[in-house]
């Protein structure tokens, strides 16, 4: 069973958001990382780009399959995990910590209040 930390919120498409000192850290869940398998490429937005709630902000390629990454928050990208560009291993090994993707300064209408809490996301995983 995949780990679902209680200190963050989720999209049903398996991205997570964690609010830390006014910034929203974004990543994909352990479940998603396991489903994708070995990762070979990632495309992320640049610092300063705008991301929109539930809209694709990047793409990740596991072997033969390219998957869109949806933003769990609307706002401006303030930091990108550059280490992932060379190696995506951290996403598989540590999806909730070292494998974070981007950090976002949330807009006023950020969409964060629409995210799933950990219990609802866990229930979604249990039902799939």
């Amino acid at each position, binding site marked *: 069973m995949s780990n679902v930390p209680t200190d963050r919120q989720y999209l049903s498409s398996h991205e997570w958001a964690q609010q830390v000192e006014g910034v929203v850290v974004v990543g994909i869940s352990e479940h998603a990382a396991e489903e994708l398998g070995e990762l070979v*490429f990632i495309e992320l937005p640049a610092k300063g780009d705008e991301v929109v709630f539930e809209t694709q902000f990047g793409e990740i390629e*596991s072997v033969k399959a390219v998957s869109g990454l949806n933003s769990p928050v609307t706002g401006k990208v303030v930091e990108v995990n550059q280490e992932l560009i060379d190696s995506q291993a951290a996403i598989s090994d540590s999806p909730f910590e070292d494998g974070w993707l981007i950090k976002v300064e949330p807009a006023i209408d950020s969409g964060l209040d629409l995210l799933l809490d950990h219990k609802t996301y866990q229930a979604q995983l249990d039902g799939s």
Partner: protein
Amino acid sequence: MALDDLLLDQPGWFLRLTRWRQPVVSLGRFQSWPESCTDERSAFPPIHPAGEVEPPPDTLAAVRRATGGGAILHGEDLTLAIAGDCPSPVFPHRRPTAVAHRISLLLARLFEGRATSRGGEVQEASMQHITDCFLRKSPSDVVVEGTEGSIKAGGIALAFRQGRVLIEASLRRDLLDAQPDNDLQQLHRLGLFLGLKAGSSSVGDLPLQWQGPLARRVEQRFGDPHWNHG
């Protein structure tokens, strides 16, 4: 193949057959262009972007796929695309290995008695450094038995976006005895195997009303309005 990218965003199910006027190489979504051009392991001649006004001599035109994986040489193959909802009754699980496994079985079933799926719903091994899709083995391969074991006769690649999946497949006509005259019938059978209801169909060049959206999509996705027009 840019149309396949657009179909990822359209509601409904699409089964598409691509015919090629000339040999064309399709590259995976993130496959390195320089590597594909110059890598000595490449099975292909040098390539140039399809749509270039004056392509260099002795080169092959190339297009970019929305799906992952390695390069495929098209022309003599049966090129298919399927776009639809995922998860859905057709593909209940969004897991790449599950979708790949199911479609591999169905493609092999199109050539029952001749082909099988290599089989196994297991993780694919990395092919990041292998240029040609047909130079590697994968659980989702469609294979035929030769005197020295299984021969890869078909490969697939996937893209997931929002609640949709795109599957692009290349099947070797020579190994599967896939005659062009049977293509539409095979497309219809594939729809039946997938459990899709009969819908509308069209044959021929792309209608003009698609050309504008396609050009915009290609420029947005690949930064060049000519790129990907195969």
